[in-house]
């Protein structure tokens, strides 16, 4: 099927509106993507026709809801090429996924060991590891980056050593757009016997990930960044790893037997899914995955790349414009500053012209410190964005700058 952005836009009714009297230009996709009709329909269909709690009921609706949810687990397994569906855990989001692993390692990681992250992580892939290190006495290290926003791979063998327990890093930086060389990092971790976790927040909507060919231990995705509902994350873990670590939440669904004295845990994936799951979210995410795969991630990514190139080129003509993050290998995130102008002011004036961008630190304060800036303006593109929208953005940006300088 040929990629037609106008057909795609029709699937996203929210885009067809005016903000402050101007047509909405939504460029905050790295924060959250809009939802196609298929996703909204799947959710309402669930509530209209087969809402029931899953896994417990013998009645028909419960069985239908359970089947729908479990078929999404299988869909995700296939999408990531995991070995088995039980390795796919439904969480509340990426933050929840990472916390589950960091907590689960509390009894295995010891003083004298270290945990490695990178200089370009989202706070959600920094703080849980700081907490793990505080609990265990392990050391938190990071792989540094250069002025282009690329990881300094020469340092890999120094930072990741025999005492490294786990290496946790993002596939694509939400602030810089940098696509990190996942396999190189994983291979160094393997050499020293360290575990690996890859944060796929920004890669989910743009790239195909094969967890078996990566040979990664844990991988996590966010539904709402992939055109699905909020409140749902995916945690992939290799069976042997998930079996080796402790669950971090106790409750219903995750147990095998419970007495008042002691409980035994259920097998995978339920061991990590305490409480009633986010059934509508899971069903909606299934519809989102189907939607993405019907269009094709390669076509989506190619379209986004041409938007990024066009936007970068058009912006470079603006006086004082400076891209933050110009890695050779980059996803559709354009983070920038304009000399003499505060990002917040640009954000306000773009909003007045109907253009939604993100301003600030993007939950990555260490990156701002590294570049010695207060924050950036970030425009991030999705499958439904157009070249005409970039033209509106550029003229809106020029107008804002002329008012501010």
């Amino acid at each position: 099927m040929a990629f037609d952005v106008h057909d795609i836009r029709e699937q996203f009714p929210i885009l067809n509106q005016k903000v402050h009297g101007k047509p909405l230009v939504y460029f905050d996709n790295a924060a959250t993507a809009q939802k196609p009709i298929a996703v909204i329909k799947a959710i309402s269909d669930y509530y209209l026709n087969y809402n029931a709690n899953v896994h417990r009921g013998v009645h028909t609706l419960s069985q239908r809801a359970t089947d729908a949810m479990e078929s999404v687990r299988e869909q995700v397994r296939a999408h990531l090429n995991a070995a088995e569906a039980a390795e796919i855990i439904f969480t509340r989001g990426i933050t929840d996924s990472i916390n589950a692993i960091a907590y689960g390692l509390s009894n295995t990681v010891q003083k004298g060991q270290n945990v490695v992250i990178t200089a370009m992580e989202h706070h959600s892939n920094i703080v849980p590891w700081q907490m793990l290190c505080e609990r265990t006495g392990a050391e938190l290290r990071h792989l540094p980056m250069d002025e282009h926003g690329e990881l300094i791979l020469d340092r890999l063998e120094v930072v990741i050593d025999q005492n490294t327990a786990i290496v946790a890093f993002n596939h694509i930086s939400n602030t810089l757009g940098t696509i990190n060389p996942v396999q190189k990092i994983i291979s160094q971790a393997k050499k020293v016997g360290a575990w690996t976790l890859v944060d796929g927040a920004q890669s989910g909507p743009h790239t195909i990930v094969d967890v078996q060919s990566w040979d990664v231990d844990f991988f996590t995705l966010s539904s709402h960044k992939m055109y699905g509902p909020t409140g749902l994350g995916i945690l992939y873990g290799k069976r042997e790893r998930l079996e080796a670590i402790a669950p971090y939440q106790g409750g219903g669904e995750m147990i095998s037997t419970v007495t008042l004295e002691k409980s035994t845990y259920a097998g995978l994936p339920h061991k990590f899914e305490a409480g009633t799951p986010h059934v509508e979210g899971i069903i909606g995410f299934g519809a989102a995955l189907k939607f993405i795969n019907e269009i094709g991630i390669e076509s989506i990514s190619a379209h986004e790349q041409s938007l990024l190139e066009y936007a970068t080129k058009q912006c470079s003509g603006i006086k004082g414009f400076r891209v933050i993050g110009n890695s050779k290998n980059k996803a559709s995130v354009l983070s920038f500053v304009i000399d003499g102008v505060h990002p917040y002011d640009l954000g306000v004036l773009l909003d007045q012209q109907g253009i939604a961008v993100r301003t600030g630190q993007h939950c990555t304060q260490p990156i701002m410190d590294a570049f010695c800036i207060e924050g950036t303006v970030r425009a991030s593109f999705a499958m439904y964005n157009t070249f005409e929208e970039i033209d509106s953005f550029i003229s809106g940006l020029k107008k804002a700058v002329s008012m501010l300088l």
Partner: protein
Amino acid sequence: MATIQEKQQILIEEFAFFDEWMDKYNHIIEMGKSLPMLPENKKNNDLLVPGCQSKVWLHAEQHEDKIIFSADADAIIAKGIVAMLIDVFSNQPAQEVAAAELKFLEDIGLKDHLSPTRANGLMSMVKQMKYYALAFSA
């Protein structure tokens, strides 16, 4: 010397002149640009107004029975907003500042027009000015 009430009325009339919000913002920006800068040594963390998305430094001193405000911000729109507040509140009796009702923010629509986080930032500035005024009128 115009009173707080009269100052507010002047601002309301100025803003009524613009139909488009971009023009109103332009006016706020111009006010921000014309507010004298605080010297760098005065921009210390003690003067930062908490709860603003950008950095806003607010300084107050007493001159006879009047309170004199000066301020700066790293973002120009925030600076324009604090400039409006200074226009209304500065060089007024501290007791009147502490007791004043601010109606111009609603009248010119600024409060509704800002996002909730930014409106909170605006209210923090007002609160901070009133704290100073209360302290000085005690």
